[in-house]
Each structure stands twice: as structure tokens, then as C-alpha cells.
């Protein structure tokens, strides 16, 4: 059943949020520290394990897959509901950050590839 997949996803999501919230309180910072990332890693782990044990039917998997195809639409809705008017002054900076920070990552590729070959 598709809902099984959705339920697994929901479980990982909530555990991630609880952990993120706990870390937030631990470090006396308001908000959720790394909850989404933790939930993602948890889901990867649970899914890998369930697949190895062949617990998860294809049908259940599609319950998770549906939500993963909804992420771009959700991001579009999120973009449409931000304070873009106030952000206009930062447009040039966005361009700078996008290009410079990304270019730096490209420059590191050969270095890491070299480390990979040595291994």
C-alpha cells in the first residue's frame, strides 16, 4: 500500500525534527538544527535496510516517490510566497555568490580526483 511508504517518510521526518529541535535547545539556539538533513539520512538508511530485507513492496515505494516528484512544485510555491520586493536590492549579490562560490567548487574537482586515484 502506498500509505506505508508515506508513513515511513512521515516517521523519518518527525524523528529528524525532534532530533533537530533537541540540538537547537542543547546549543541554546532557537530553531531546528539540521533536522531535515538528519531525516534524509535516516530515510536513506531505513530504505537501504528495508530493501536488503525485502520488506518494502514496490507499491509502498511509490508513496515516497510521489512526494519526491512534488519537491520542485513545492519550491515554486515557496518562491512565490517570499518577500521578493525587499530582496531586489540583493539581486546583484545573488549573481556574484552564485557564480563565484560555484566556480570555486569546480576548481577543487581535479584536486579531489587526484586523491581518489591515489587510494
Amino acid at each position, binding site marked *: 500500500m502506498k500509505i506505508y511508504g508515506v508513513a515511513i517518510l512521515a516517521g523519518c521526518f518527525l524523528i529528524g525534527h525532534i532530533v533537530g529541535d533537541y540540538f537547537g535547545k542543547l546549543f541554546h539556539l532557537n530553531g531546528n538544527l539540521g533536522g531535515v538533513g538528519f531525516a534524509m539520512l535516516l530515510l*536513506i538508511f531505513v530504505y537501504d535496510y528495508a530493501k536488503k530485507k525485502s520488506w518494502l513492496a514496490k507499491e509502498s515505494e511509490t508513496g515516497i516517490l510521489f512526494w519526491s516528484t512534488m519537491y520542485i512544485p513545492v519550491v515554486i510555491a515557496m*518562491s512565490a510566497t517570499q518577500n521578493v520586493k525587499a530582496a531586489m536590492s540583493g539581486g546583484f549579490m545573488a549573481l556574484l555568490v552564485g557564480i563565484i*562560490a560555484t566556480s570555486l567548487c569546480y576548481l577543487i574537482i581535479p584536486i579531489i580526483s587526484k586523491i581518489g586515484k591515489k587510494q
Partner: protein
Amino acid sequence: MGDLIKILEKNGLVFAFLIVGSIMWASYQISTRLTKNKIPGAAIAISIGLLIAYYGQGEKGIASIPAFSGLAILGGSMLRDFSIVSTALGASFSEIKKTGLVGLLSLVIGTCIAFFAGGTIAYCMGYTDAKSFATIGAGACTFIVGPVTGSAVGASSDVIAISIAIGVIKSVFVTIVTPFVAGRFGINNPQSAMIFGGLVGSTSGVSAGLAATDPALVPYGALTATFHTAVGCLLCPSILYFIVNAIL
């Protein structure tokens, strides 16, 4: 007219599905017909989203108009985080183990470089508080990590909008540039494609960029790029924000 608006207001979330679906359709048409897939449909669609937000008032963008309030539910933090977590299905530990330590290294280094380079530029241009530094730095990872970090640390809506824009620019930049520089940076085998995906991280950009370079490399790059988003969502609002908060 008044009746129509009332119906749309009452069924806001359903109306949001219709709006977003139409934007997606138009964007993918533009992407394939006008740009020959050179600019990813997702990047065009998100840009249209940002453009629409401009016509709203204040913090909530277009959702400040009651008929469009459903977009705030669809794009709100609950459904957003829920759908982002589900994308982890594209990643698998057993696959990434094949790249070994280098895979992990590229993920962590890629996230840190984008975060600190992005944040530092923002700092120099007047965004000097830790929340904005972290959100804009996270936006330099991907257009997902930015808003996730922004809402986790409590950044303002305009800074979150900037972080989305940075992620979109990155995605377009990676798509266009990758085929031209792939040879120079040695992106021609599965392992270097995985390192590339892990370092650069923008899943849509990496997939589209590799598709134009060598379609056989797409799954390798997309795999580590998905991990990049997970690692970004894990590190940016926690350890990295913590470091920035301690320094600034």
C-alpha cells in the same frame, strides 16, 4: 467575480496545485522549445515563482492576496521539508560507498566551500548578521539548503528569497558551464562524475550539465548531488551556523 474569488479562497491549496502545475508546464515548454534544454525547466519555473512573488505585498509575497493564500500552504515549511526528505530516495549508501572516502570528502568540502564563500561575499556586501550569513551561504549550496537553513535559524523572508535566487543562478550556471569545462576538469568517468556531483551539489544543474556532457554519467553525478543536499541540510543550520554564530 466576487463569487469566484471566494471559491478560490476557500479551496486555496487546490488552487495552488493548479497554479504551480501551469507554471511547471509553461516552464518545461520554454526549456525544451526555446532553450533546447540548455536552461533547466525547474530553474525557469522557480524564477517565475520569484517573479510572481514580486506582485504581492510584504513578507508573504503573492500569498498576501487572499485568492493565492493556498500557495503559502503548499510552499510552507511543513510540506516543503516533507517533500525534500523524500528526495533522499534517490541516494543510497551502498552506491556511495563505491566512491569511498573521496565521495564523503567531496560532499563535506563542497558544502563548506559554498557556504563560507557565499556567506563571506554576503558579509562584505552588508549582510553582517549570523542568520543572513548562514542563509545566503547555504543558498550557495542549493536552492533547497538555503530556505531550509533560513527557516531553521529564523532569517527574514527577503534573505530567504535571495538564497533561493542564488541556488537558481547556480543551477543555471552549472548547466551551461559543465559541458564546456568537463574536459578541463577531468569529468569523463563515473568516479569524477560522482566527485563533481558531491562538490557542486545542485541536483538539477548537475543532471542537466552532465546530460549535455555525457548522458551515461548522469546517474553518478545525481546520486552524490542528492547526498550534497542532505549533507547541506544537516551541516548548514547546525555546525556551520554554530561556527558563524560564534565568530560574528
